[in-house]
């Protein structure tokens, strides 16, 4: 357990939908938010939605967590997919919100088994497609 963790609860739906994203590939991405002392689902993305659809789903001045299932083809021409975890915390959001999201992240991420990469973003450029690609290859 990290120092100064908030102890925020995670709604069961978060884990279930994440499993569906991982195993059944029903969703392209999931956005999570903290509401009434627990982490709940904010938005589900259809499998055919793109990375741009994903990034435009984030509110400009509120924090969110998100997972994105990233498909790519390796140099050996092999189809692969990796799951990204993104902690979105824009500078313009309120201190209280930043504190709550940052102090709950470690525990939440542990609940989601199967995340390959993690990004922490404070402005859209920090989670651009180039950065995602840079991490995968």
């Amino acid at each position: 357990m990290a120092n100064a963790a908030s102890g925020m609860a995670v709604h069961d739906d978060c884990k279930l939908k994440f499993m569906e994203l991982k195993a059944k590939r029903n969703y392209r991405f999931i956005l999570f938010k903290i509401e009434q002392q627990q982490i709940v689902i904010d938005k589900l993305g259809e499998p055919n939605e793109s990375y741009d659809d994903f990034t435009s789903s984030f509110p400009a001045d509120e924090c969110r967590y998100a997972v994105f299932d990233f498909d790519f083809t390796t140099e050996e021409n092999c189809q692969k997919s990796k799951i990204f975890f993104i902690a979105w915390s824009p500078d313009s959001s309120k201190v209280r919100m930043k504190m709550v999201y940052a102090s709950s992240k470690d525990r939440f991420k542990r609940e989601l088994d199967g995340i390959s990469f993690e990004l922490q973003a404070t402005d859209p450029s920090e989670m651009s497609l180039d950065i995602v690609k840079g991490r995968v290859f």
Partner: protein
Amino acid sequence: MYGGDEVSAIVLDLGSHTCKAGYAGEDAPKAVFPSVVGSIDQMEVETETENNSGPAVDPKSNSKSLDSDKAKGKRKLYVGSQALGYRRDHMEVVSPIKDGVIVDWEAVEGIWDHAFRECLLVDPKEHPMLLAEPSSNTQQQRERTAELMFEKYKVPALFLAKNAVLTSFASGRATSLVVDSGGGSTTVAPVHDGYVLQKAVASSPIGGEFLTDCLTKSLESKGMMIKPRYSFKRKETRPGEFQVVDVDFPNTTESYKLYSQRVVASDIKECVCRAPDTPYDESAYSNIPTTSYELPDGQTIEIGADRFKIPDILFNPSLAQTIPGVENFAEIVPLRGLPQMVIESINKCDVDIRRELFSSILLAGGTASMQQLKERLEKDLLEESPQAARVKVLASGNSTERRFSVWIGGSILASLGSFQQMWFSKAEYEEHGASYVQRKCP
């Protein structure tokens, strides 16, 4: 588990220079006062009060702390800016913290007492207590803190949160490099997923207080003496005209004189100093326009190159050696500037997270609020960091947030409903003992 979320918690951040105290959930600390205490040896005072013509001790503070002093025995403590602002014969000013470690627990108790009973007017028995602690706090120190809080103050619940983690979280990041430049020292601490990476923490004794002392010495060498406020009387003879009369108090201690000088000098520093955009160069700055500052005794001084030279000591500590009276300082500490400390600390971390640390360097603490410091640090780091790294130095635009980021982080955390289950409760203390603090507050 502690279940009392109706009563608001108290958040305390005892820094090397100032102590911040207030209620959880608020935006800024209610009380901010120096974390030094005035101390008078009790024996000495008793024998000398009769033949002493000095001003009488404020009767109110006298009676208040008297009974607690009897239990403690030898010395009498004065805490708070008001009590310290008053000069007393033989009063020494002592700091309970040396190099980030508490060495004088009695003085710490004095400070806590002052915060609870005189600033916040609360009974510690009724409020859970969140304390901010330096990243390098040892196990013994933490256990001792827990023991004191539960045994002496009988708090219902306690939490020890790390400075660097609170700052990092308050800026919305679980991973960051926290550069905390405070009064007594500067610490660079990498935080990853809410853990402080202890092995990579770098610290140096160059903080605001050291800069203040350099400024005092440098001004003195140019013939500008800072008179402590107690050493003169200022009367208005005619409207707008003042007469200054020096008064002599032979029994004033050196440490009190230094403390009062620092109060003035640190105000000068905060008013006129700013970090230069490029490394300080004596010849280039010799013709810089001066800024005037009016001292408490009415004397106006002109400050020129020192405005830039003093802050540059943070970046280039060897500069201090050119100031008369501080030459010997290099023998005590290794000379490392702020950018070197940052790079050194990042290089001690795992390769995988270095890139992320470079892109989220957070500034915190009073000295870090110096004008242009952020821009200068960013510039120096860009020059010295690896090519691929994206350097980003962040500081809250709001100066209260920047100065009190640790306290604010603690305040939000302790006010969360979900946090109430995280407290180290009195019942747990009674069952498992003080060492359980390591489990509850890792």
